[in-house]
């Protein structure tokens, strides 16, 4: 079976997870499972007014594409959509979406999990905090646990 062609979008605009699932699965009879992951902006207990996401235009798309193709080769996916936003995000806003479709649930779950682990450690995006009290804030530090999470997929 040929690997599916992933849909990749890097954009400032919001997305609609339901619409993306429909776009992927509509009029298809080979999809038995759709797993979606949505990452949202949280306020860290009221501490944050916003998160600002900087990205490397061009490479962001290219790197997500590389990771998505790797997932499509590794699992028998019948559809894959990845959307990553950039710009200023208010608490509650969508940041990232992964939609993985397959004939069976295991491949869809694993591919979505793999994609998120790899996006976190490889896609060129950086989060800057804007604090609720002063407006100022610093860059979010990369977590060791995220690198370790990506490492567990090494074959």
């Amino acid at each position, binding site marked *: 079976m040929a690997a599916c062609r992933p849909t990749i979008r890097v954009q400032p605009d919001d997305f609609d997870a339901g619409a993306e699932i429909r776009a992927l699965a509509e009029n298809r009879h080979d999809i038995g499972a759709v797993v979606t992951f949505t*990452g949202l902006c949280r306020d860290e207990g009221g501490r944050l007014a916003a998160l600002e*996401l*900087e*990205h*490397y235009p*061009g*490479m962001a798309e*290219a*790197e997500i594409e590389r990771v998505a193709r790797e997932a499509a080769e590794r699992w028998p996916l019948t559809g894959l959509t990845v959307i*990553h936003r950039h710009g200023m995000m208010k608490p509650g806003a969508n*940041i*990232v979406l992964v939609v993985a479709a397959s004939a069976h649930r295991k491949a869809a779950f694993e591919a979505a999990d793999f994609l*998120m682990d790899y*996006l*976190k*450690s*490889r*896609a*060129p*995006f*950086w*989060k*800057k905090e804007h604090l609720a009290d002063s407006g100022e804030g610093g*860059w*979010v*530090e*990369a977590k060791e646990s*995220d690198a370790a999470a990506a490492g567990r997929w090494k074959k």
Partner: protein
Amino acid sequence: MKLIYFAWVRERIGKGEEDVELPADVTRVSDLLAWLKGRGENYGAALEYPEIIRVAINQEHVSHDTPLPESGEIALFPPMTGG
């Protein structure tokens, strides 16, 4: 060579990109980081710990022992925090 910077690397250096003439003995990514670090206080602040800086050549991640290309785009940035 075109250099581009992101996140706190960009903020500390004080610009998003620049064109530089590299000395002949700067042949690898690690040489580039060491050379840049000596260009001024701002570069010193951005590259204080060169081992944590991530580098991409023509939009692909590379390790610090990678040879530099003849031309193209080299990006320097902190570990990524997307997703």
